[in-house]
C-alpha cells in the first residue's frame, strides 16, 4: 500500500489518486513540428530512480500534486500542490 501525504488532505491511500506519469517538458505549441510533438506525447525516460511525477487527488480534494517517487522502492518525498497553496 502506498500512502501519499497530500498537502491539503493529509496522508491518504494511493487508491484515492490517479497517476499521471513522469513530468516532461512540453514543446512550444507555436514553434513545434509533428515529429517533436509525437516524441513529447509518446517517449518516456522511464527511469529506475527518483522521478518527478504528477498525481491527481480524484477522490479527495481534486487537486493536482507534484511529487518525487523512487520507482524501485516506491518511497515518496516532496509532495506539493500544483500552483501552490493558494491557487
Amino acid at each position, binding site marked *: *500500500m*502506498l500512502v501519499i501525504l497530500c498537502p491539503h488532505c493529509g496522508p491518504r491511500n*494511493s*487508491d484515492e489518486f*490517479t*497517476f499521471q*506519469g*513522469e513530468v516532461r517538458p512540453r514543446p512550444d505549441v507555436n514553434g513545434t513540428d*509533428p*515529429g517533436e510533438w*509525437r*516524441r513529447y*506525447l*509518446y*517517449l*518516456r*525516460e*522511464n*527511469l*529506475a530512480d527518483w522521478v518527478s511525477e504528477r498525481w491527481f487527488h480524484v477522490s479527495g480534494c481534486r487537486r493536482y500534486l507534484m511529487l518525487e517517487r523512487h*520507482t*524501485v*522502492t*516506491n518511497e515518496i518525498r516532496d509532495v506539493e500542490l500544483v500552483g501552490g497553496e493558494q491557487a
Partner: protein
Amino acid sequence: MSKTPRFSAWNLFRQGISRSPWPRMWDHHDLESSYDVVIVGGGVHGLATAYYLARNHGITNVAVVEKSYIGSGGSGRNTAIVRSNYLTPEGSRFYDRSVKLYEGLADDLNFNVMFEQRGHMTLAHSDSSLRTMRWRAEVNKLEGIDSSVISPEAIKDLAPFLDITDHPRYPILGALWHPPGGIIRHDAVVWGYARAAHAMGAHIHQETEFTGINVADGKVTGVETTRGPIATETVINCTAGWASLVAAMAGIRLPIVTRPLQAAVTEPVRQFLHPVIVSGSLHTYVSQTARGELVFGASVDPFASYSTRGSLEFTTGLATHVVELMPAIANMRLLRQWAGLCDMTPDFGPIIGPTPVDGFFVDVGWGTYGFKAGPVAGEAVAGMIATGRPGELIAPFGLDRFESGTLTAEKGAAAVGH
C-alpha cells in the same frame, strides 16, 4: 560441449535402469571475446530468438546474456495463457502464427511443454463489450481463427461453476469463445528453447548483467557486461521490465512505461474448471492448472513502478471479483501472490525492429501479452537479423511508427484480455 540426449520413452527406460544422472540440459561457458549476435535477456523471447537464429538461419555464434537465471523475469511470472483472438488483423495474424508454433513446439524442441488447448472464454458483461466481441470474432474468422460469440447457456455448459444469473453486479451476457486458446507450462517453454539453442551452439550466460553498449559513428561495436566486454556488431534487446534502461545504454528513448502486474495462485483442488475464463470488466482471468491450482491474473497496477512487491489492494479486489464470477470458490485459500513487470506502449502493440543505432535491435514493449508471442517473436526477429529487414508479420510494429503517427490499435483486445 556435451551431447544433448533425445528425450524418448526408450531413453527414459534406459536412464531409469542405468540409474546414472541425466546430463545437463545446457552448460556453463566462459564468455568469449566476440560473438556475431548478443541477445540481452534470457527469457522466452531471447532464447527463442537464439533457437530460430540457429535452426532457420544457421547463425550459431550467439550469446544470450541474462542478469539472473533464465526465465526469472516475465517468462516465469506470467499466467501462461496462449490465444490469438485479437482485435486488429495484424494482431490476430501475428498471434495465430504464435499459437501454431506452440502447437508444434513440443515436437520441435523434443521437450514436453504441456500445452493444453482447453479453450479461452472472454466474458461480456455489457452490450458494448458484446459488440466489441462480435467485431473481434468477425476479424478473427476472416483470418481463419476459430472464434465466435456464445450465449450464457453455452457458457454454463463449458464452465458450470460460473454464475450466469442476473444477480451479480456485472451479469454474464455472453462470451467470446476461442477453442484453440489454452495454457502451457511456461518454465518448460524457457527450458526447452534453452536446451535446443544450446544444442545448436548458442552460449547461455546466466548471472551476467548487461552494463553498457558501445556505439561509434552510430554503429554498435560491442557491449559491456559484469563478466567482461564482448565485441559484436549486433545486439538485440529482448528484455521485459528493463527495456527502457537497456535502450538508454545505446542512447535510445522508447515509448514505454513499466508497470507491475500482479497474479496469485490458490491451493490445489480437484479439476472443475476446464477453459480459461477472462473478464475484462472485472479485471481478472482465471485458469486451473494440471496440478489443480487456480491461477489468477489482473490488469496492470495503477501506477508505474519497477517494484515486484504484491499489494493488499490487489488480493482484496481479486477475491471480490472472482467470487462474483464463481461463488462456489469463496472458501478456497490463496497460497501466494507475485508481480511481474510489463512494458506498456501507448498503442498496446509491441516494438520490434531496428533502431536509429545501426546494429541495435529491439523486441520489447510486450505489455501484458509477451509470453504468448514468444515463439513468433523469436522466429520473426531471427528472420530480421538474418535478412536485414523486418518481415511482413512484424512490419506494423516498428519503433518508427511513433514518429510517423501510424499506431496500431490493440487496446480493446489486449488491455486485460488474457
